[in-house]
């Protein structure tokens, strides 16, 4: 078939765990084992034992029997939790590392973006780095020359183009690095989480650029943890878990599986072993749960309903005044808010040792749609100690309704926004009244109507 861009057949990659831990061996080890190995093997043969070296070696399959086909012009997302094999897959497809078993066929020129700014050299100027980085990414000198002005304009670094990049702010550095990569024009583009950097505005710019790439009919393989970005950019998504292909289908379905199967973060988490629980010798976190008003643990929350964030912690050393609190991030990494337990019962009071359960309630009709990530923490102000902060402890999905009584009313499109409060609206109407009243009424109507 000529319209196939990527085809993999039982693609597998095995890593030696021992090798990973030791990183590199010393020459002496290898020499001695090389010298001794024949004797050992001979001994084993004599004793009739197995001789396969693999039997002794501890290995892990980072990727196992992954087969799929991607057609030209398709944009496919790859999701899965950390260690699921996403990056290994991209590394094999971009020929950085070889598969252990199986094969992949690539039809067309591949550009891979596993990191922005690969090969940037701090001592070189912006201009020099554009040429160097372009060449490393596979652009020809003439191609870079042709796109040079465009790249500089996209990165917004015109003034500093002849300054060594070590004097750039991290924002400028990232913009320049992404700009070069974004102007790569391969037939197949492999992207790994490069969008997980920079501020929100920059991320948006990157996403738009990626969208353009998709529209130009190129094949895109996009690895990400950012579920809205995956569903927005890719119609099809592949879910990997522990190196295996778990699901391959329309993005919204696969993302749904991923979120609901608890393959992402879960709605409740416990630390049964106190030694491994987050915390110190004063206080340790034992559990975090997301609950509805009637006490159910849940990972999907109706946007209209309040949701309780419950923290269970154990105070091991008496005498500290503790401030339980938590952060709430959305799935784009934006911190929506931080909330402190200000309840008068324990506020500023040293606590005796024992178990505590503190719950903070987020009101209904407040959060926006999407995934919310909870980071529980406990701190002391006097002296200032952060006992623990578990950034991505639990997560839940806020789901909007089409019943018409949430903030979206009867509007069915995408709303975005960090919060989605249900505001009180009023309209003054006076048919023969003063001009200002009429204007207020019109404006109010207008902004409501604009969402349709």
């Amino acid at each position, binding site marked *: 078939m000529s319209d196939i861009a990527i085809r993999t057949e039982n693609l597998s990659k095995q890593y030696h765990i021992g090798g990973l831990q030791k*990183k590199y061996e010393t*020459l002496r080890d290898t020499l001695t084992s090389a010298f001794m190995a024949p004797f050992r093997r001979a001994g084993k043969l004599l004793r009739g034992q197995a001789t396969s070296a693999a039997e002794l070696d501890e290995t892990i399959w980072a990727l196992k029997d992954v087969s799929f086909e991607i057609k030209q012009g398709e944009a496919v997302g790859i999701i899965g939790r950390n260690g699921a094999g996403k990056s290994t897959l991209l590394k094999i497809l971009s*020929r950085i590392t*070889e598969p*252990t078993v199986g094969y992949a066929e690539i039809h067309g020129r591949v550009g891979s973006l596993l990191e922005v700014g690969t090969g940037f050299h701090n001592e*070189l100027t912006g201009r020099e780095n554009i040429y160097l980085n372009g060449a*490393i990414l596979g652009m020809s000198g003439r191609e870079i020359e042709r796109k040079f002005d465009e790249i500089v304009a996209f990165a917004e670094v015109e003034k500093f183009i002849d300054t060594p990049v070590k004097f750039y702010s991290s924002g400028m550095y990232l913009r320049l690095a992404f700009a070069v990569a974004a102007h790569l024009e391969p037939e197949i583009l492999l992207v790994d989480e490069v969008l997980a950097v920079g501020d929100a505005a920059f991320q948006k710019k990157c996403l738009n650029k990626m969208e353009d790439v998709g529209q*130009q*009919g190129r094949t895109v393989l996009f690895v990400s943890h950012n579920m809205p970005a995956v569903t927005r950019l890719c119609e099809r998504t592949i879910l990997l878990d522990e190196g295996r292909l778990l699901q391959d289908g329309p993005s919204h379905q696969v993302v749904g599986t991923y979120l609901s199967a608890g393959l992402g973060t879960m709605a409740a988490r416990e630390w049964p072993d106190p030694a491994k629980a987050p915390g110190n010798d004063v206080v340790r976190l034992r559990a975090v749960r997301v609950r509805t008003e009637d006490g159910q643990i849940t990972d999907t929350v109706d946007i209209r309903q309040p949701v309780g964030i419950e923290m269970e912690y154990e105070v091991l050393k008496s005498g500290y005044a503790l401030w339980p609190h938590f952060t709430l991030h959305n799935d784009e990494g934006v911190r929506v808010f931080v909330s402190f337990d200000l309840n008068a019962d324990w506020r500023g009071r040293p606590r005796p040792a024992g178990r505590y359960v503190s719950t903070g309630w987020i009101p209904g009709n407040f959060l926006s749609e999407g995934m919310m990530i909870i980071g529980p923490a406990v701190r002391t102000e006097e002296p200032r100690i952060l006992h623990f902060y578990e950034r991505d402890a639990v997560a839940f999905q806020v789901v909007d309704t089409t019943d018409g009584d949430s903030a979206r009313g009867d509007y069915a499109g995408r709303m975005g926004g960090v919060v989605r409060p249900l505001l009180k609206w009023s309209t003054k109407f006076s048919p023969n009244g003063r001009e200002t009243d009429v204007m207020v009424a019109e404006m109010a109507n207008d902004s409501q109507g604009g969402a349709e």
Partner: protein
Amino acid sequence: MHEYIERRPTITVSPSLRSESVSVVRIEPSKGWVSLKLRELWEYRELLYFLIWRDIKVRYKQTVLGAAWAIIQPFFTMVVFSVFFGRLAKVPSDGIPYPIFSYAALVPWTFFANGLTQASNSLVGNARLITKIYFPRLTIPIAAVVSGLVDLALAFLVLLGMMFVYRIVPTVYVLWLPLLLLLALVTSLGVGLWLSAMNVQFRDVHYTVPFITQFWLFATPIAYPSSLLSEPWRTLSGLNPMVGVVEGFRWALLGSTTAPGPIIMLSSLVALVLLVSGAFYFRRMEKTFADVV
């Protein structure tokens, strides 16, 4: 007003992309010895050029003396040699003033030794590139060796200056110099390929290289003339490719010795074996670079 309404990208395949004949690459496990893929290396020549250019550009960044280091290194070695070997030990120098006798050998030697050192550390130094991007890995040690040519040119200018001072007129055999330099480069790269690939697995190499170059320096007739050796040992010393380079330099520039033809032939052969075997070893180890480095 409508800007936040979702637009789903419509994906259309432009005909121009379709009609192009696409290359098919098959990615599969390789076994045993693999081909050198010289054609691919040629296709990536532009990257090689940029890597050489980068290595030259950044070599003396943030140093006070900058490119002067290219001269200081061989020049002061020459001074030390002249004092200890030339003056105190009275080492013979084939009737040539000792300083220029040793410096003419130190110029190609420094190029060789630095190239070797840079190449053997090059893969580890470019670990981030190797784990994030695909390109023929051979370009990295090649760039490391070739970029030393700039240093060589600077040191060579000083050599010309010294010849002027000592009123030595080069022989017509200077025409052989480019080939002698190629011999030095091939030797440096050949050994560099072996060491760089080994260095990925065994960081011991990093500590061994200074020792190797030092040992090699004294195993090569730089501080002393090869005429101290009797035949057939003198010719056999050509098994060390740097003997061919050094003898060739003295012969072509200073006219000090008889034409070292057999030595150079032997040296070239050994250098070629080093280069080819190094390249194959490198390619064989290459598949593990990204996982181990």
